[in-house]
């Protein structure tokens, strides 16, 4: 195994072990997204037909806000005991750190999504009209779109004053096309009005472009002084 893959896997294992023992990020995300689900039902009070129209938006807004919680914590861990500084001087490839972190966040957010989707189905009386299996690529690509740029931008916002405020401010504008893609694709599957092919392609293009840019620029950002 090349050193990049080996270091990525060991970074990922470390993050997963930390999360397994503390469950900090997953618990915070779960409870936060649950609150969003409940508050949205009060705010919009939708019928079953209406909720099919709007739930694509609700789901992704809930997950987007929840993801911010996890992404903000992701790099904070590395600040304790100067772990990040140690990483900077080590010969390990910077992209391995990034990929480990991004894959870890992807895993945590996917777990939260899998646990919360049944709740959306129950609270909003959902029954997809279109083919439900199409939601799988939408969720995988959409979550990766949020996570890869989010992990990168969390590393940027780590260097600013009032870090936790900064992350959504820089992440949301860039994520708008991805968010639009996720919401439209999910709504199309739920209402069965149209095929979500265009939006899945858009998410794929977004993922490929920004994963590449993240990998090209991460080392520069990590070593920025």
């Amino acid at each position: 195994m090349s050193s990049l893959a080996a270091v990525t896997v060991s970074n990922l294992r470390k993050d997963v072990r930390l999360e397994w023992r503390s469950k900090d990020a997953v618990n915070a995300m779960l409870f936060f997204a649950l609150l969003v689900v409940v508050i949205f039902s009060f705010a919009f009070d939708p019928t079953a037909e209406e909720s099919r129209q709007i739930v694509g938006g609700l789901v992704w807004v809930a997950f987007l806000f929840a993801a911010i919680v996890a992404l903000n914590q992701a790099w904070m861990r590395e600040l304790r005991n100067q772990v990040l500084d140690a990483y900077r001087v080590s010969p390990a490839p910077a992209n391995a750190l990034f990929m480990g972190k991004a894959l870890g966040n992807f895993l945590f957010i996917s777990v939260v999504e899998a646990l919360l989707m049944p709740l959306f189905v129950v609270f909003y009386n959902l029954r997809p009209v279109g083919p439900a299996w199409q939601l799988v690529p939408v969720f995988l690509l959409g979550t990766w779109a949020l996570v890869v740029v989010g992990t990168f931008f969390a590393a940027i916002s780590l260097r600013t004053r009032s870090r936790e405020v900064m992350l959504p401010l820089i992440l949301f504008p860039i994520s708008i096309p991805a968010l639009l893609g996720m919401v439209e694709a999910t709504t199309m599957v739920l209402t069965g009005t149209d095929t979500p092919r265009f939006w899945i392609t858009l998410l794929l293009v977004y993922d490929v472009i920004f994963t590449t840019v993240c990998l090209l620029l991460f080392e520069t950002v990590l070593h920025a002084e």
Partner: protein
Amino acid sequence: MKFKIFAVITFLLLSYALYQGMVAAPREATMGDIQRIFYYHVPSAWTSFLCFFANFIASIIYLARRNLKADAFAVSTAEVGVVFCTVVLVTGPLWARPVWGIWWTWDARLTTTLVLWLIYVSYLMLRRYSTGQATPTLAAALAIFGFLDVPIVYMSIRWWRTQHPQPVIAGGQGSGLDPHMWAAVLWNWVAFMAFAALLIWVRYRLEITRQQLDEAHALKAVGQAEGSFTR
């Protein structure tokens, strides 16, 4: 001196462009005088897009060469670009209200321009909140993300919906401008570009001065620290 001459030329250009837009260009047949806002709306849009493009190039140059002048240029163009983009976003609804009957619609170009504005405001926010030597690098990274995002935003929103008037200048049949209208658009564009260049020039000099001041402060602090050790 060069700056003063350029400022005078800009002033003359802006005056002549104002005459072109308000007097020389003919009255539009259906929309009437309200159409004249077009001479400010479109040149501002072109100018702001060029500013953002310059910001993208300057950011790449900064990352490649670590040249602080490139960073100063990147800040200046982003700020001036946001100003002109704001002009676009303000003049658009002013025109749309009487012509379309609505202030705003979530059409492809309107929404893309709004997202563009949001992206570059977030860039300026990052610069404002970021501290220390890392700022230019972090900002340049964000600028690259932002610029690459624009075509994706446009594609996605175009698929979502479209209402903006089709391109009148190089569109299909029935499009096209009266030669006098053309003159007004182009003169205004030249004038706005000169005005943007003037603003960028001022902002660039300010940024360079600020960098020198920071450097002087840092050197002074080092000097004092050294002095206290030797004493």
